[in-house]
């Protein structure tokens, strides 16, 4: 044994030298490359490629999902302007049903390649370039109000409008529950925020709001030669994605993973209920919204690449006087009212339907949902969990430039007001709540019946 150890150590000392001198992977595996073409050439190049880029993403979506208009009867989003889409939209592979799939072991599903493609990570519309992509309604409204251009020449938004949140979303404040939605049906912008909010907000909150609505340079929206809008851009604002402090389904890529082909898509999260949230970011687990507001200049704005950020004019908000005010504003954004919930987060049996009550039972018991989505803490648990989806598929396949890899631990998101926030999961891979029920039924092995699944959806719509 001793002799064996000795030989190990001897080997270690020799090989250590080799490792230290080895050729590393190229810098572009971690850092952003400097562009090597003049802007005009890059733009012409991108524009020529755009039809094919969009077609490739449409092919992915059509292979995975039924994106037709099937509304959930009688259910509207919280502003009362947009119907909620219903039904399972993820397509099944041939020869199986949801029930037969739910009765198979993960190993069997993996070896027979039966995991529905729609359960796999959803690629960015143009993985190699990545960056922020805004939906059409946001682009139009910001263009109209501010004359600021959010339209990229290399990509368009991919998911149909019916699977995006209500726009503009209603705004509920913890400081003024008696007022209800204070948005007046408008999108908050740097142009209108003062007249909409004076008298409702404090001076500190007003200043925070102003900062959240002020455009700053971003990776694809800036003044250098490396931008993806027609003209030099003033940049983007926090609320360009978190429009009206909710989400407009704008997407990006995680700043936390390299190389580029491994960076999964991120669907913008709603800021409703931020006051109750103890960890922030799908993967980053930042411990306060102040930290997050400060660090977004490194992440959402610049992909977690401070080298690129410095060149393009990063604006780092001042910790003591700016991020705190931004946080004070973000921390008064409430969930939409849920009249059927009592103060502990449980359904009031006098107000809820039998189906909703049955769904709550599933949620707390057989469905295992409440183990992480704890009703008393706004349907979160302040933890990150690894669903280990790779039990069901072999990693390594590339879909439109994104390599299908295990997600690892991801933050538990709140379910309050969840009907307002399609698409679902951190990357938006699931178009409807019925899809999320099928997804978790499979991943957690809960073997719910169709009736139980329907009850669960009905309950989720009441939250």
């Amino acid at each position, binding site marked *: 044994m001793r002799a064996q150890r000795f030989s190990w150590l001897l*080997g270690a000392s020799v090989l*250590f030298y080799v490792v230290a001198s080895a*050729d590393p992977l*190229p810098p572009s595996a971690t850092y952003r490359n400097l562009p090597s*073409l003049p802007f005009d050439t890059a733009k012409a190049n991108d524009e*020529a490629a755009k039809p094919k880029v969009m077609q490739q993403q449409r092919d992915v979506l059509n292979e995975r999902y039924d994106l037709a208009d099937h509304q959930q009867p009688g259910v509207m989003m919280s502003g009362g302007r947009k119907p909620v889409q219903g039904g399972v939209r993820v397509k099944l592979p041939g020869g199986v049903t949801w029930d037969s799939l739910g009765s198979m072991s993960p190993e069997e599903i993996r070896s027979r390649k039966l995991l529905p493609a729609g359960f796999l990570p959803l690629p960015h519309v143009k993985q190699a370039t990545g960056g922020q992509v805004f939906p059409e309604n946001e682009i139009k409204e910001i263009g109209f109000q501010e004359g600021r251009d959010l339209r990229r020449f290399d990509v368009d938004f991919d998911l149909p409008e019916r699977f995006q949140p209500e726009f503009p979303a209603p705004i509920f404040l913890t400081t003024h529950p008696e007022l209800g939605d204070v948005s007046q049906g408008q999108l908050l912008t740097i142009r209108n925020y003062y007249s909409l909010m004076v008298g409702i907000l404090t001076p500190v909150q007003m200043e925070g709001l102003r900062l959240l609505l002020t455009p700053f340079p971003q990776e694809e929206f800036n003044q250098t030669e490396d931008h993806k809008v027609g003209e030099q851009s003033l940049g983007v604002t926090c609320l360009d994605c978190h429009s009206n402090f909710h989400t407009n389904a704008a997407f990006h890529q995680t700043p936390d993973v390299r190389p580029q082909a491994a960076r999964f898509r991120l669907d913008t999260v709603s800021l409703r209920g931020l006051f109750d949230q103890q960890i922030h970011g799908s993967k980053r687990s930042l411990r306060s919204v102040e930290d997050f507001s400060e660090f977004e200049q490194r992440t959402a704005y610049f992909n977690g690449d401070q080298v690129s950020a410095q060149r393009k004019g990063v604006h780092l908000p001042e910790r003591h006087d700016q991020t705190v005010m931004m946080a004070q504003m973000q921390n008064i954004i409430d969930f939409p009212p849920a009249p059927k919930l009592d103060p502990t987060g449980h359904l009031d049996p006098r107000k809820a339907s039998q189906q909703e009550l049955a769904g709550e039972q599933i949620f707390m018991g057989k469905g295992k949902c409440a183990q992480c989505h704890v009703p008393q803490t706004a349907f979160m648990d302040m933890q990150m969990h690894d669903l280990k989806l790779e039990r069901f598929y072999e990693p*390594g396949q590339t879909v439109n430039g994104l390599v299908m890899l295990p997600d690892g631990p991801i933050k538990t998101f709140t379910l309050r007001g969840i009907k307002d926030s399609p698409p679902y999961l951190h990357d938006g891979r699931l178009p409807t709540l019925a899809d999320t029920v099928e997804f978790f039924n499979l991943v957690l092995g809960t073997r719910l019946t169709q009736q139980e699944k329907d009850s669960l959806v009905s309950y989720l719509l009441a939250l």
Partner: protein
Amino acid sequence: MKHSKLTSFRGLPVSVLLIVGPALAADPPPIGNPAGMAPDTPGVYEAHPQLQHPNTADLLFAREAALGAMAEVNAGKLAARKAQNPAIKDFANRMVSDHTNANGRLAALEKGDRMNVPDQLDKDHKVMMDQLGKLDGRDFDVAYIRGQVTDHQKTAQLYEWIIDNGQDPRLTSYAMETLPAVMRHLEMARALQAQLTGSAP
């Protein structure tokens, strides 16, 4: 710590090719930021550069992948002969056959152009082979399989890198088609390492 250092072989095997198919079976992803693209690249305006017009990343990938491939077959042949544990022997034989297939295809892709593939191992892999040559029995098995884990980790990262950084669709397609098998080999190597050393799988 020492253990992990001992076996941190630097290596980039071209893992696999269980999938044998036409060179462009997978549709290459659209080219992103044209970083590294020379302004005189033919077809640049269509964003689909003509074949056989590799960029710098492609050239680097070709070199690293070829070096790794060569090392993988050499180490596999050695392990097939020297390994004590039958499972390690099986794994080594599989590496030799899978990689010999893959290498043939890679070599065909890399023929001509500006891709001057090296004809002998780089220094790191030479040292690795030298070290393996001096070990025997269980020591050899552990050193070989730890090296395989590291090599396949590096290969996975290298292949992922070229998928969104390369320009020549022959190489990016090759990387996309080969990556699932790289992952499979990595999974096998991790399982064997766990079996042999009690490490976390």
